[in-house]
């Protein structure tokens, strides 16, 4: 079991390499650079050149990459070109925001999805149709639009929750929850129906097995059959779906953070791309990659905990 996990971790090292190189090359293809952005519109050509030299932007791209990589091996992701803040500090303050948003959305989708899935699986064909219909709607509605709709309805019309902004958990747990509720719903709702459908199909598949007949013949209560056996058997596909949603939510968080004005990694990525702040872009890419690696690792661990056959193999 630990051998599988160690192998996964080792495989993620080359992955990080590749991602960092790809991001580096891609951003170098965007016209303009940080120096011209920083110098502003009034600056002379010479000012820009001087700034460019100061920031080592006149070096070839591979030399620049090497400098960055060298920094990484010494535990530093560099400093922001725009405000000289250490990248790790900038990312550190924003990571909790994105994590709360993404984990919250995944949790919401999973819990609500499983509940809906069980209900629709046991409540007959009408509930089944309803979940199918909702899941098509869930796939079709873009999360940013849903976000805007929620703001218009809940915040503006009803005045129940703040439209934008973020409150740190340490400052006020209830304020934190209030500031996250709408973005989490906007990001997670599309996943609810995906999980519900997955739960229902996997559960109905288990319920057709002969060992379920055996339990029924023994008068085992249906509740116990559903929760102890059918859901347990459906846990692996649900887990897979959740981890796919988690990774998808990382991407979706960039848009949602913009809509709700949350100071997360996504917002940083967008502003850093605009100002061509290479170290920050690199840092965000590395963090996102690490999050994906962590998500996959967690999924593997969950598989091992759920299914003894995975443990044995």
């Amino acid at each position, binding site marked *: 079991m630990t051998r599988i996990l160690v192998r996964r971790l080792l495989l993620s090292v080359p992955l990080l390499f590749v991602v960092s190189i790809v991001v580096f090359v891609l951003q170098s293809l965007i016209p303009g650079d940080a120096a011209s952005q920083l110098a502003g519109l009034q600056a002379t050509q010479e000012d820009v050149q001087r700034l460019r030299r100061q920031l080592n932007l006149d070096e070839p791209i591979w030399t620049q990459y090497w400098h960055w990589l060298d920094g990484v091996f010494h535990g530093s992701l560099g400093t922001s070109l725009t405000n000289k803040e250490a990248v790790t500090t900038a990312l550190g303050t924003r990571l909790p925001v994105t994590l709360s948003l993404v984990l919250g959305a995944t949790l919401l989708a999973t819990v609500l999805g499983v509940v809906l899935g069980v209900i629709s699986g046991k409540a007959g064909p009408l509930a089944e149709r309803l979940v199918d219909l909702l899941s098509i709607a869930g796939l079709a509605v873009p999360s940013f639009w849903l976000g805007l709709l929620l703001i218009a309805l809940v915040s503006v019309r009803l005045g129940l929750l703040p439209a934008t902004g973020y409150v740190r958990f340490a400052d006020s747990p209830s304020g934190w929850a209030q500031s996250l509720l709408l973005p989490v719903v906007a990001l997670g709702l599309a996943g609810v129906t995906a999980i519900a459908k997955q739960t229902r199909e996997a559960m109905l598949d288990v319920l057709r*097995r*002969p*060992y379920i*007949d*055996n*339990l*029924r*013949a*023994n*008068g*085992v*209560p*249906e509740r*116990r059959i559903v929760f102890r*056996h059918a859901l*347990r*058997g459906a846990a692996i596909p649900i887990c897979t779906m959740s981890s796919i949603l988690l990774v998808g939510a990382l991407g979706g968080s960039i848009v949602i953070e913009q809509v709700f004005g949350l100071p997360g990694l996504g917002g940083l990525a967008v502003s850093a791309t605009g100002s061509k702040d290479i170290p920050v872009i690199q840092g965000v890419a590395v963090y996102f990659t690490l999050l994906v690696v962590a998500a996959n690792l967690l999924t593997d661990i969950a598989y091992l905990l*759920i*299914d*003894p*056959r995975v443990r*044995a193999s």
Partner: protein
Amino acid sequence: MTGPLLSIDDLTVRYPRRRGEPVTALDGVSLTAGHGRTVGLVGESGSGKSTLGKAILGLVPVSGGSITFDGRDITRAGRRERRELSSQIQVVFQDPYGSLNPVKPIGRTLAEPLRVQRTLDARAIRARVLETLERVGLPATTVDRYPAEFSGGQRQRIAIARALVMRPRLIVCDEPVSALDLSLQAQILNLFNELKADLGVAYLFISHDLGVVRYLADDLVVLYRGSVVESGATQSVYDRPRAGYTRRLIAAMPRATQVTPHEKGP
């Protein structure tokens, strides 16, 4: 009163279809099984023999007729009544792969029906499980292992142990050996016979294989398209089949042919 252990009277089961007429799987079937007797139920696929087993276990809705177990009407017994009955009636299914929960250790699977009964404490349940495993010829270490670690024959022993752990008086065996290869079939059939002699348990033995049924059954019931076409003591049905369908079934049995010396070659 010593009536029959199981008595089925004019039983009809119809499966509803989404469109059109419902399918009649069983049409006025009657049979009885005595205490400690083995009744063989034979017929081709689709003859309704598995449906009959499921009706006794309460797994299909009964449209008409009655099922009486030990003088008690169980035709439409609910989940609670089934829980009581589970210490009387048990089942062994055909598929040794699908009949055990793959993600539960064997010990848990065997203990589950005892646990929902709430008559024994954890220690007594464990003792019962170990004793039963030993009875079917499996080591005590089986309890902590998972179905995937066992072969088809071993799994069928486990399935039999799960039935026996409740100390039932009737076991419905639905094609319990047809998924096994021949040498294993013989072992499992012998186990059934031993258990019958030792524990006095009655079987309703469902099979499409007349050879298997002939080996085990005291009485024979032949089903054809949802109706009983013939019933009686196994040997007499076998020797003097009255229904044409039974004769065809017997004629279709594979026979061991003697190989004469000259056929072996020089």
